[in-house]
């Protein structure tokens, strides 16, 4: 026999399903109050909902319960409910967060939980914003351009220590919470001149990629507006992936800009080492 035959329990609901049902019954309930931003194209207001919640719930669960029982047309974007896709970004009690990773038990139970859309992007409906600008920005960044393969079979050799830093940047789930919180975009609306922390991380991942040979420093300085960042570090604080956006990505990029444009000798050294990178 290939596998054990699970011992039969009561029909309809076996011991396994029953165990799961029992735990549902044992979970603690409470009524909480939520103020959710409802409206279209920037116009709208908070609507208050009372909702029965169960121990362990995250904000997204509460939003779903409200949608299922009280407001079928409540617009919300989500996907994985596991903190992996970066779809469910919102401002919860004024803080940019993922709804699926924010536990209700971590929020003050005496006050209503406020849930609003991200404010740095055009509003669409309820909790959903138009984030398409981000996808357009990404296209403008020079693509990955690898050096020729190291081995005859078309592969490369890289040490783990050389990829560690870039792997940190590649953890990004594109939730755009850092973009939402950055004052250059949020308050000063410099979407035309500044690519924002997410894409500085992206550019850093490419620039520091051990195989990459392209030079993005001139664009970073001009079109991408790296100079507009004044290192407030707000982006780093909200990143759900704990990427050290400012210290590890932005500051080293700023240093490259300085080296390349204001330190000609440094630039020569860099060109030389780039060439070495390409050959070696």
């Amino acid at each position: 026999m290939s596998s054990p035959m699970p011992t039969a329990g009561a029909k309809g609901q076996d011991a396994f399903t029953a165990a799961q049902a029992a735990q549902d019954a044992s979970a603690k309930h409470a009524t909480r109050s939520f103020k959710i931003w409802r409206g279209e194209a920037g116009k709208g207001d908070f609507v208050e909902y009372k909702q029965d919640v169960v121990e362990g719930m995250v904000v997204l669960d509460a939003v779903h319960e409200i949608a299922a029982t009280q407001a079928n047309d409540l617009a919300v974007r989500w996907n994985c409910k596991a903190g992996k896709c970066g779809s469910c970004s919102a401002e919860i009690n004024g803080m940019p967060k993922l709804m699926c990773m924010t536990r209700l038990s971590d929020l003050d139970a005496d006050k209503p939980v406020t849930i609003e859309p991200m404010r740095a992007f055009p509003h669409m409906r309820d909790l959903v914003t138009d984030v398409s600008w981000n996808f357009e920005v990404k296209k403008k960044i020079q693509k990955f351009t690898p050096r020729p393969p190291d081995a005859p079979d078309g592969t490369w050799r890289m040490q783990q220590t050389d990829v560690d830093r870039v792997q940190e940047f590649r953890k990004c789930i594109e939730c755009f919470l850092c973009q939402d919180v950055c004052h250059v975009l949020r308050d000063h609306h410099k979407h035309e001149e500044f690519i924002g922390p997410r894409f500085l991380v992206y550019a850093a991942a490419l620039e520091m990629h051990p195989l990459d040979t392209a030079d993005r420093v001139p664009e970073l300085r001009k079109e991408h507006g790296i100079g507009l960042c004044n290192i407030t570090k707000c982006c780093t604080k909200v990143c759900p992936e704990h990427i050290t956006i400012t210290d590890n990505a932005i500051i080293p990029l700023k240093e490259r800009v300085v080296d390349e444009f204001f330190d000609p000798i440094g630039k020569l050294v860099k060109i030389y080492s780039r060439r070495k990178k390409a050959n070696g």
Partner: protein
Amino acid sequence: MSTPTEYKTVEHDVLVIGAGGAGLRAAIEAAAQGANVGLVCKSLLGKAHTVMAEGGMAAAMGNVDDRDNWRVHFADTLRGGQYLNNWRMAELHAKEAPERVKELEGWGALFDRTADGRILQRNFGGHRYPRLAHVGDRTGLELIRTLQDHGVHQGLDVHMEVTVLTLLKDGDRIAGALAYDRERGRFRVFKAKAVVMATGGIGRAYKITSNSWEYTGDGHALSYHAGAALQDMEFIQFHPTGMIWPPSVRGILVTEGVRGEGGVLKNRDGKRFMFDNIPDNYKAQTSDTPEEGWRYTQGDKDARRPPELLTRDHVARMIVNEVRGGRGSPHGGVFLDIAWIKEKLPNAEEHIKRKLPSMYHQFMQLAGIDITKEPMEIGPTTHYIMGGVRVDGDTQMSTVPGLFACGECAAGLHGANRLGGNSLSDLIVFGKRAGEHAAKFAKSNGTVSIDSAAVDAAARRALAPFDRAASAEGPYQVQEALQETMQDNVGIVRAQAEMDVALQALGSLKDRADKAGVKGNREYNPGWHTALDLDNLLTVSEAITRCAIERKESRGGHFREDYPDKDPAFATFNFVVAKGKDGSMELSREPIPPMPEHLAAVIEEMK
């Protein structure tokens, strides 16, 4: 409000439906062949299910153990699939996966490295040698981001947050699709010479699942209604380790990587119950002592794998067995313990956080559990469907000319049970093939015309839920009832009586779905979206149930309490469903063609 307005029409040579690993890879390839390619997806680009994959992608590169090669991978895949696999697909997959993985590196992917600087590979259930290329426990993110970032420079036309409602045909041939954009609720007609389905799975048909909201079986159902055959629908993989507590996180995946790194399963009494029952065909490769199992996870080539790394179907059933026997953990599962490795490693805490960072955060944030100190509580969760659109092994074309399918929504590669890691590699191997052959098909076949009556009818049907706004029941209630029906009656352990109940219940759920109403307007209205998904969920649920009833034996992901043994009589064919002339679901048995000699020899050699 409920009269369809005019339709914006978009024309492409190749329309790819789905932007996960499979769809993206298909689109990239079709574009590389010179086709004009449109790519549609229900959510934003880069958010598809593939992003959630954790453990890795299987490819016999032999970087860690040079005894590995395509033949071993091929044999492992068939053993895991209980020989119901499409052997041609298993052969191509094993042979081409290494090339596809290496190609990703040239597009910017950064896998974890071996000491000599090559792509590192890890152990996974059912794979004989360390075979999974990975990036910590976020391999899917690396895959999707690499393809996405490469793809946007290939001139793909991406239509985000657009949901396909129905496929359109011109005679027998596929002609495109009708879709709506989620933002505004406007219809859009796609006219295409070839269509690639890459919509992923069906997990939302069940209550407890590791899958996202997108997994409503759209590709399965739409293809079926367009006349394509589905195959192996009874085979669903219940992953043994999902979170179970607190209730709101139930189903969220705990990667098999935890066991790959040395994590062990224990029951309430602290016993490692997996040693109690090791299937005969895996005895030779499985360790009989905890000590040997530990050495295996630490890379000792002479050690055999611990029983925790047996195939998922087996492990899931062993867990159910413990719980049913009253030996489960407090919340109705069993314990998965990685913290114990501190007995073996001096820096265990650091080691766990480095190897399994997202698992560490997931438990810390969602359950308040520190996995470096305490065991996790886990139980099975609906994870993957082996069944799907029946396709040709080489071209991935379905039984409808011009309609291709790849990734999770296609069937064949995995047979009765999928090995972990074989899906991500499936996506890139067959995504590429589907894209290539769809582009060729588009090139060698003339233009199509759109049947506007069919478009009108489909659009009208889609708007009907608004006409019933006053209805007592909304779509969420029907969806929930459906999920409970499938969970309770067509789950991990199946029996005739329960499945009969399910089939009946599905009939009445269909009536309820036809009556459910939706309030509000067409702009970003999740209630409406849920109502539209119901049709697809009902179609796949019916297919699953009908096939499961007919397979009167236990094999792979399909376990029958009333037929607990494998029956050789069921080893020679696949169950196939197709829409009959009268619109009802027809089931047939399609014989598996005999394996050519060179492949049969590989199986014999690897026994």
